[in-house]
């Protein structure tokens, strides 16, 4: 029986995971693009990303592109599996 995930259940974190799941398994998304799409401030997004990273659901990588610092985010295998289980649990609830 799939279970709801407490960390992903938060609306903002659910949207973050949903957005990252829209990409390929190893694709990394630009931090600003993620915030812009979800309508989250940098501070708010950063806090939620930290929670997800501590849980091992995402990986944050800081790099330089054309000598400018950029932050990219990707969902880990564990994060993807948890998200899919969470979605499955929601589908089960809908069937009730």
């Amino acid at each position: 029986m799939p279970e709801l995930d407490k960390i992903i259940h938060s609306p903002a974190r659910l949207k973050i995971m949903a957005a990252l799941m829209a990409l390929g398994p190893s694709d990394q998304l630009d931090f600003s693009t993620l915030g812009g799409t979800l309508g989250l401030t940098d501070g708010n997004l950063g806090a939620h990303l930290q929670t997800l990273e501590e849980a091992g659901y995402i990986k944050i990588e800081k790099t330089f592109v054309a000598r400018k610092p950029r932050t990219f985010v990707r969902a880990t295998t564990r994060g993807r599996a948890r998200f899919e289980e969470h979605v499955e649990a929601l589908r089960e609830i809908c069937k009730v």
Partner: protein
Amino acid sequence: MNQEATPPPSPAEAHATLADIDRTQAQMRSDIAQSSVAPNMIFAGILWMGNLTISQFAQAIAQSPYGLKYISWIFTFGGVLGLALFQSRQRRLVIRHFNWRVPVLFLVIYGYAAILYLVAEPWSLLHNLNGADQLMMVHKKFACVFIAVFLGYVIMGLWVGRFFVWLGLLMTALVLLGYNFLPDYFYLWSGVTGGSAFILSGVFIRKFWK
């Protein structure tokens, strides 16, 4: 950590959450396509239009289909380089994991195209033809290339949306129309119609892609 008790949502709430997930994912894909794919399509359309329009007017100075072929190659390589430069200057929103299937797909397509070209030996026919027929043979070759591009539109449309299927079919019909009825203006016709198809695709992705 995720095993702690979470108050389960009601079926209505769960349904709304699933809808929210779908909306977020559609929005994400749309944002990426709008900011990365759309400008490339528009730029490619401008290059396509420019290349073939120049080829149309270059016919007069090229003297022969061979000369025209070299002029066209110069503009094609210039266009590919321009597109690569344009892409390299864009802000990258997504770092894609290397997918070996993409380069292999192109190798297969171009490899088979080269094999067909070698088997068909179109250049052997070209030597035996007079000037007007040589030009017709070059038109035939270009028409095949354009039709192959729009076949790509139709195939792509089966995955990404009906708009591209209809656009591919319309453009194929327009190529055939130009090839059969407007031989004197074939490059200009193909440049305007084919370039417009790319630009229209970019605008469609920017405005309506969901």
